[in-house]
């Protein structure tokens, strides 16, 4: 029998048993679609989170107060402005280029009928430089604003949207009330990608000069006569100075805070690389978890295929017996069944890839910031496994039946 003839017989066989064909294909579609869709989602989330942290800058250290991890010490001495200024001195910390300080205070910003409750960040003017985050309209604070504790405010785009109803609106020069005092909007920060991610909405922010936060909105004095600082944003001289700068910060603050033993530090120093590393563990778990779900889907799909193939064995054994009785050779039977299961697996695989693609599209539409891409190894794995299952369980019972004497196959139950 020629190959085209075998194809015709196999396709006729599939068409006469449409339901079985559809169910088998469905198993493959689900398995393949799940593997491709989930692995693309997993990778998208992973690279999204990574990129969000990369935006923090590779030469920036973050220092903030935290509870000691060991020892008898129970009090936390806040970081003060004096300490921040000292760290900016090259003779104290030669690997530090500059230090931006941030003091946060709870705030309520009101514009007419609209208001937003927000964490106000009081920052030094070099914050925009250290974090590489410029304004998109207006200006950021100047040193004069800082010295005068000026009532000026710079908003993030989400805050603009909440206060003025439109993200694109330019509120520069307009007055808003901050904790019942009138402030003037002088600028809007550039919109950050990342939207609502691991770090929260980075555009739902409002910045005021640090001194304004410390003196007008809060009274945050420290024992050494400075003011409380919540976060130091430290720009080092370069990526290679990160470790040295970290040591300098640690030794200076340990001295200043009277820390004598390791683990008694009442502050934490982190950098982007540390964050990425600890995050790698989290996203790694996520990837393993998604792969597990995908693997289970593939398994379930595979078992579905297997079941349908095995359930139809009785019926098909008789069919094989009859075909042999009217003159089919064993090889004709095997070719027919091979083509049948290949067609099912490949059609199912192709539709499964389409389903995975659809999942990716929908995922991308729901979360536009995810950069979702179907990977070829997911396609190869999924279609490979399902084709193997389909062909194996399609062919194995058939090859057994094809070796039987026709009369035994005809009488099979």
């Amino acid at each position, binding site marked *: *029998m*020629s190959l085209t*003839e075998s194809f015709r*017989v196999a396709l*006729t066989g599939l068409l*006469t*048993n449409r339901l079985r064909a559809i169910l088998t294909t469905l198993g493959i579609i689900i398995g393949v679609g799940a593997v491709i869709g989930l692995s693309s989602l997993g990778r998208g989330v992973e690279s999204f989170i990574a990129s969000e942290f990369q935006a923090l800058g590779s030469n920036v250290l973050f220092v903030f107060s935290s509870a000691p991890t060991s020892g008898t010490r129970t009090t936390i001495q806040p970081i003060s402005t004096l300490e921040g200024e000292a760290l900016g001195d090259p003779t104290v910390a030669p690997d530090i280029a500059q230090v931006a300080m941030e003091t946060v205070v709870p705030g309520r910003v009101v514009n007419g009928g609209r208001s937003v409750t927000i964490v106000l960040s009081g920052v030094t003017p070099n914050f925009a430089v250290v974090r590489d985050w410029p304004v998109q309209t207006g200006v950021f604070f100047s040193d004069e604003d800082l010295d005068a504790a000026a009532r000026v405010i710079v908003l993030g785009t989400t805050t603009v949207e909440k206060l003025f109803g439109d993200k694109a609106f330019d509120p520069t020069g307009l007055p808003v009330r901050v904790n019942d005092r009138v402030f003037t909007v002088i600028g809007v920060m550039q919109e950050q990608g990342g939207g609502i991610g691991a770090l929260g909405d980075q555009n739902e922010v409002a910045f005021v000069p640090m001194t304004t936060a410390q003196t007008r909105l809060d009274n945050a004095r420290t024992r050494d006569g400075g003011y409380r600082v919540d976060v130091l944003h430290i720009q080092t001289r370069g990526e290679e100075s990160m470790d040295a700068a970290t040591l300098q910060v640690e030794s200076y603050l340990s001295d200043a805070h009277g820390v004598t033993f390791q683990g008694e530090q009442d502050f934490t120093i982190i950098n982007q690389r540390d964050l990425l590393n600890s995050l790698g563990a989290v996203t790694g778990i996520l990837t393993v978890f998604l792969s597990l779900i995908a693997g289970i889907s593939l398994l379930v799909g595979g078992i579905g295929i297997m079941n349908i193939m095995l359930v139809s064995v009785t*019926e098909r054994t*008789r*069919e094989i*017996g*009859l*075909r*042999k*009785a*009217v*003159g*089919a*050779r*064993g*090889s*004709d039977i095997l070719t027919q069944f091979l083509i049948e299961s290949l067609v099912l697996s490949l059609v199912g695989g192709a539709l499964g890839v389409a389903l995975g693609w659809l999942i990716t599209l929908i995922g991308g539409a729901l979360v536009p910031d995810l950069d979702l891409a179907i990977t070829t190894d997911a396609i190869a794995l999924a279609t490979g496994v399902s084709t193997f299952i389909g062909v194996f369980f399609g062919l194995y019972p058939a090859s057994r039946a094809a070796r039987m*004497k*026709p*009369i*035994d196959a*005809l009488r099979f139950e």
Partner: protein
Amino acid sequence: MVSLFKKKPAYQPPVDETGRKAVIDIRGVTKTYLMGDIEVNALRGVDLQIYQGEFVAIMGPSGSGKSTLMNVLGALDQPTTGEYFLDGVNVSKMTESDLARTRNQKIGFVFQSFNLLKRTPALRQVELPLIYGGAANRTKRAKAALESVGLGSRLDHLPSELSGGQQQRVAIARALVTEPAMILADEPTGNLDSRSGTEVMQIFQSLNRDKGITVVFVTHDPWIARHTNRVVILRDGRVVSDRMVSQPLIAGKDERPSEADEMESVLKDAYYGGKEEEYN
């Protein structure tokens, strides 16, 4: 050739008194089934020659080995011992692919349970042997075969849309579409009513008479057997009787006596088995 030294005389099929060659020639055929530890001797040494153009009925009680014999004759099963020459060729020595070709080209087999493919239209059923035989003009030939069994108007019907008699006629069309030398049938009328049975006999008779095809079939029905030329009777895996039919019936012409008529001669006039008042 190495075998020259020990060459057996080439097989010559036996010939009957009118000069017809044997299409079926089996010698000392036995068939033993193993059921666990128990051996079932379904055939205990059968010798049988059936000549070109014969019309033979095989009869015998249930379990006597009729189906076993038919399956061997149809090359659907192999005998345990003994030899089977089909049209001059030793079937027991054939390869699997030669066996397939023999079943395809030389034998048309009709089963008691029809064995049609599910959800497949009549025309496709009949085309099946032609596909495996690589024949040309398949649709035309399948159509002609179906017309010859009176199903020209049922080409697209599925088995589920046909009566039992019609399904069996599709199966017969499938058996004769390759124009085989012989048609073998295991109780082809076993599942049919007497009218459909008569139709099948009409088809067999005309295939045998008009086309000279050898027809061998199994039946339990003496009336059906009387349509053939020769009746072979098996018992316990052996041939116990092999005789010619003196006056074969002609299907459709000789009216089968109705069941009431047949019963008439054996039943008494009235029922006397119980108390009379039970019937009033």
